[in-house]
């Protein structure tokens, strides 16, 4: 253990001890029960924050700076994927050209989800591959970027793939510096940082994530839980395909078991809803239900799902054909009895329409009388092995979340694969340049994370180590901060306006227990960050509380109530605007106004002798801190975009554009 890691661990331990000491005292000895309605929420918010801090501490405990990997052997096959949906063509082509220039031998592909003929021509002209969705995807769920990648996976064959967003321009050395990690046959994935070049040093939109693409990923790496972040990562095909095969098996089993479990109910309900004169259909439904009992038995005996379901589907087809044949015969008889129609009857006595081809067609799943009842159709389709509802049977990249990366990575870890975080900038990215796009992007990340938390809770996944579970939980945990933020904003307002204190007294004991914790907690950021600017991140983690709350509630509605997420793709270019978008930060502006008003009321109350002086001063300080945090959104609204900022800056300084910042063409 080196000295730095030792120091980190000492600070982590101190934070944990002081934090637990404070929170235990808060719960047991400090609550103002007369004002429980604010006292309990506040102590819960504080407990939330302490747990957040402990999770961060645990991550840092295994902080790991990897040595450079060995150079990769010659002869590996690599596909470079550039994913695009609607980004401008010049942007995609800039990245594609840079990708083509990567030193290690590889094939470059543009994964064009927009299916743009012009992009196809441009790519072909420069010898770059172009892939769009196959016809299998027509009328089936597209699964956004995950679907785009899954489609490409099945039409390429490299041992490794480098995944790049359309706005991440790769360094030519990116493969040479990372492929060596795969000398370890258990290594599935290597993630490199995402750093943005179109961001001023003061980073008004909080685009750079130096704490995440640094200490946090390095800490997770120590626990073999380095995260996949969707772009700038290299993945081993075998790992993904193995995941795809195993997911296919478990999903087929899952839908089969669900169908078998609910079959009785579904059929009974369908039978009840049948009108009079449908006795034959009712009898057929019963036959299906009885047949499924046999299916259950065969599966228990250990027969293969493919065989069992194939035979079942054949029996259902025969049943449907019988029903249709009977209906046709009845129709025939009726038609024959009508005089004047006799001339359409063939010499053999049958009507022209009732030939075998028609019989076949009407018996097929989509037209069959059994399929006419939606619930029964779904039931019958589930007793199959072909995943007819999906474009591909294999979906190696997870489709359960709008952020496919985290879910995929967690599943790979659960299968026992390893991941690595390589701490070297090997691509130049573009960040959203206006508040609207930024908020859309953060909302999407947060929603995706919440979806994974609700759909595949890491605490319940088999195959993960306890600390891997906690590493995934930790990331999900941070997105719950929106709820705590509201309480932190409300508490001082309640004291300043109503004089109600959620703690029994602002005694010296309170400060003696709280302040040391706050100090070591900040110290921890300094020790792990070593000069990294973490203040922006801290500001945004509180100031974006409306986004975090919306992400959790909308993901909850999506996962459990089947609602739409209202998902938009992040615009990668500056959105045009005429006025400043103040409406985007309405909740924050209201919060700031309320805080300021509360301070005025509080001072008046104090001067009138109605409020305690120490309490008022402490709460005013608290409000000042909240305002300092929230003020970041005002800067964000006023930020004109990188080009305009550069222009404004050089005018002020009367000089050229500041050195060290590569200019990147963002707008057409």
């Amino acid at each position, binding site marked *: 253990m080196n000295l730095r890691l030792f120091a980190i661990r000492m600070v982590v331990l101190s934070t944990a001890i002081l934090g637990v000491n404070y929170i235990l005292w808060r719960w047991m000895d400090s609550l103002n029960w007369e004002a429980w309605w604010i006292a309990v929420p506040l102590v819960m918010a504080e407990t939330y924050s302490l747990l957040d801090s402990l999770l961060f501490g645990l991550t840092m405990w295994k902080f790991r700076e990897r040595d450079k990997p060995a150079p990769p052997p010659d002869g590996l096959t690599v596909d470079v994927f550039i994913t695009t949906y609607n980004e401008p063509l010049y942007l995609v082509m800039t990245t594609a050209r840079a990708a083509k220039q990567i030193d290690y031998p590889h094939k470059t592909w543009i994964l064009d989800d927009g299916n743009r003929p012009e992009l196809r021509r441009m790519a072909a002209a420069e010898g770059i591959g172009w892939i769009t969705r196959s016809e299998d995807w027509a009328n089936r769920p597209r699964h956004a970027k995950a679907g785009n990648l899954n489609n490409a996976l099945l039409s390429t064959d490299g041992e490794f793939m480098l995944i790049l967003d359309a706005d991440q321009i790769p360094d030519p050395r990116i493969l040479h510096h990372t492929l060596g990690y795969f000398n370890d046959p258990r290594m599935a994935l290597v993630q490199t940082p995402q750093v943005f070049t179109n961001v001023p040093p003061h980073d008004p939109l909080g685009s750079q994530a130096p704490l995440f693409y640094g200490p946090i990923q390095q800490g997770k790496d120590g626990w073999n839980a380095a995260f996949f972040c969707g772009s700038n990562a290299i993945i081993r095909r075998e790992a993904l*395909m193995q995941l795809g095969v195993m997911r296919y098996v478990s999903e087929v089993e899952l839908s089969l078991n669900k169908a078998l479990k609910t079959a009785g109910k579904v059929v009974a309900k369908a039978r009840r809803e049948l009108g009079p004169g449908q006795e034959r259909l009712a009898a057929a439904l019963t036959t299906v239900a009885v047949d499924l009992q046999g299916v259950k038995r065969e599966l228990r005996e250990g027969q293969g799902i493919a065989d069992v379901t194939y035979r079942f589907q054949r029996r259902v087809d025969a049943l449907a054909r019988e029903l249709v044949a009977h209906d046709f015969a009845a129709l025939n008889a009726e038609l024959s009895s009508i005089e004047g129609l006799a001339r359409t009857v063939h010499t053999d006595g049958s009507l022209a329409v009732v030939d075998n081809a028609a019989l076949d067609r009407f018996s097929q799943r989509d037209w069959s009388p059994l399929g006419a009842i939606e619930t029964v159709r779904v039931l019958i389709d589930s007793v199959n*092995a072909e995943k007819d509802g999906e474009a*591909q049977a*294999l979906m190696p990249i997870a489709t359960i979340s709008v952020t496919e990366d985290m879910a995929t990575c967690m599943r790979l870890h659960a299968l026992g694969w390893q991941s690595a975080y390589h701490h070297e900038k090997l691509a130049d990215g573009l960040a959203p340049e206006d508040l609207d796009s930024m908020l859309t992007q953060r909302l999407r990340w947060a929603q995706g994370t919440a979806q994974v938390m609700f759909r595949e809770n890491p605490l319940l996944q088999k195959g993960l180590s306890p600390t891997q579970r906690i590493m995934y939980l930790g990331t999900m945990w941070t997105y719950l901060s929106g709820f705590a933020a509201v309480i932190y904003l409300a508490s001082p307002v309640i004291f300043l306006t109503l004089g109600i204190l959620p703690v029994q007294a602002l005694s010296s004991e309170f400060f003696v227990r709280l302040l040391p914790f706050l100090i070591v907690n900040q110290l921890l950021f300094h020790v792990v960050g070593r000069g990294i600017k973490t203040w922006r991140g801290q500001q945004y983690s509180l100031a974006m509380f409306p986004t975090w709350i919306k992400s959790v509630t909308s993901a909850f509605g999506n996962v459990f109530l089947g609602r739409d997420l209202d998902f938009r793709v992040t615009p990668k270019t500056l959105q045009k605007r005429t006025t400043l978008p103040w409406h985007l930060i309405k909740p924050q502006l209201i919060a700031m106004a309320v805080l300021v008003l509360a301070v005025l009321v509080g001072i008046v109350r104090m001067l009138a002798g109605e409020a305690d002086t120490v309490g008022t001063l402490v709460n005013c300080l608290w409000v000042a801190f909240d305002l300092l945090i929230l003020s970041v959104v005002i800067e964000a609204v006023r930020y004109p975009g990188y080009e305009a900022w550069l222009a404004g800056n050089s005018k002020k300084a009367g000089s050229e554009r500041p050195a060290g910042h590569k200019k990147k063409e963002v707008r057409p």
Partner: protein
Amino acid sequence: MIEFINDTLANGVGVIRPIGRLNMVSAPHLGANIEALINGGTVRLVVDLAGTDFIDSSGLGALITGLKKSRQAGGDLRLANPTPQITAVLEMTNLNRVLQPVASVEEAY
């Protein structure tokens, strides 16, 4: 290098025999072979694995895709004659729970 030998049994069942390694390089070829048979009207298929020395997850993936395509065309895809390595991979990935190979091509249908 992989090689595919296709033939059709008297009962109309198409047999595909991948000879060599069925891995990420050859899996797309297997897929193309299966698709060609299905498009030609042969939808009941057997993949005879007797000559297949090695299979990886991409190879398994091609078999699953073939199963889906043949079923969508009203047919089926079955496995025959797995070598010990293939049996082990089928078990490791649980795919044997869905696709259970039979001992010979004749037993497949």
